[in-house]
């Protein structure tokens, strides 16, 4: 057998992608790469949103206005995010469909984990569930804030220096004075934590970087990253809710 006989035989995944990403290894590589980028985005999003904790609306509205004023860069970032989310989600759905096809007859007796080196847990077995919940949340979140009421609906504020800008802070404060919204956001962050918990470890494995001696430590690190993101995001609506109640 010569090296020239090694041609990728791409048979699965998104057909518009290069051959590598349409093989089983490549499909997971794509999930890992887009996943890393998305976690990077989420971390930046959280850091930016921490300006909501300031005692007045100024810092957050200024931050939002700065992002809004990026012009073509902002559009580029948005297109990039849609592509990243789109690839991660579509690829994930195709993977799930592959799994269903690979076991057309399921076990009569519910499979039980043997423990040991297995990372079979609620997070790892339900990535499609947590992912789907995050997708529905994402749509709600974008409709609420990205396409929510703006200058024309009277959500205006004057930033330092007299610049008129969208009062996104007011919209957020109003949203999180509603306990149902707080509950939806808090609930979703728990699924985000769960998704990242397994995704973090899975990324190392899919990129081929995992070493057995670091396996447990990496899985534990995934839990920490998931928890930090979940706690960071769930703290914001809760703090804003109690503020709206005058606590």
């Amino acid at each position, binding site marked *: 057998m010569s090296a020239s006989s090694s041609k990728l035989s791409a048979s699965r995944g998104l057909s518009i992608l290069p051959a590598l990403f349409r093989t*089983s290894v490549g499909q997971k590589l794509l999930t890992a790469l887009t996943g890393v980028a998305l976690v990077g985005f989420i971390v930046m999003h959280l850091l930016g949103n921490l300006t909501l904790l300031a005692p007045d609306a100024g810092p957050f509205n200024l931050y939002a206005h700065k992002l809004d004023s990026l012009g073509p860069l902002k559009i580029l970032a948005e297109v990039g995010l849609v592509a990243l989310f789109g690839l991660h989600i579509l690829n994930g759905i195709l993977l799930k469909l592959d799994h269903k096809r690979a076991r057309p007859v399921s076990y009569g007796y519910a499979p039980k984990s043997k423990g040991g080196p297995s990372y079979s847990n609620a997070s790892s077995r339900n990535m499609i569930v947590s992912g789907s919940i995050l997708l529905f949340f994402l749509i709600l979140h974008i409709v609420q804030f990205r396409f929510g009421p703006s200058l024309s609906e009277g959500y205006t504020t004057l930033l330092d220096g007299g610049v008129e800008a969208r009062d996104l802070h007011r919209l957020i404060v109003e949203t999180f004075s509603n306990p149902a919204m707080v509950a939806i956001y808090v609930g979703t962050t728990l699924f985000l934590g769960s998704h990242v918990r397994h995704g973090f470890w899975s990324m190392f494995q899919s990129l081929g970087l995992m070493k057995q001696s670091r396996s447990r430590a990496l899985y534990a690190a995934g839990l920490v990253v998931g928890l930090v993101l979940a706690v960071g995001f769930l703290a914001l609506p809760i703090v804003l809710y109690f503020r709206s109640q005058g606590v």
Partner: protein
Amino acid sequence: MKLNLEIWRQKNPKTQGEFKKYSLDDVSPNMSFLEMLDHLNEKLIRDGIEPVEFDSDCREGICGSCGVIINGQAHGPKVGVATCQLYMRHFEDGATVVVEPWRAKAFPVVKDLVVNRSAYDRIIQAGGYVSTKTGGHPDANAILVPKQDADKAFEYATCIGCGACAAACPNASASLFTAAKISHLSLMPQGQPEKDARVVNMVNQMDMEGFGNCSNIGECSAACPKQIPLEAIASMKSDYIKASLK
């Protein structure tokens, strides 16, 4: 000891199977799981019922022929053993034991508990070997192999190809088997010339056989009677990505 068995019975690949209940009341705790099935079959033959078909050969955990799902676990509840090394003393007296075949599209049921595992053979045929000129016996130590590589390669080479990894995987993925077979050769000097072609061809074959994809849950490694570590899969992925970029 007494045992209530629920065993998957299926006449042939085309017919629908179903669980049938049998009870045994004279099982010795020192019987292996397969000896218990032999015992059941003797009783079934005496009663004029067709015996339960199952695979077995060496019965000492090295051939990879046996393997069934016992109460939802590949090779039963014990870690690091094949079904033939599982003893009835690991079950409670009067326990209900559900036995079914490996379930995967790539492992079609032949009869009862027997599945066709030729898919694994075809993955090996795609590159799980080294092409060497046979001839004079080379000197020992003519090719030096670092001890840690030799140990790891040996660990991967202990894979007996029983199919428990794909059976236990929630996605029916054959990644652990394929990875063990690729990585044990890619760690050896003799495996280097064909390293890239091997990983690409074997992974392609695995994909073509209709196994699911790996989502890194790790149940394969837990179910593996040889306890092949998950690092094998990471190593296969790293080799595959590098080979495909060349």
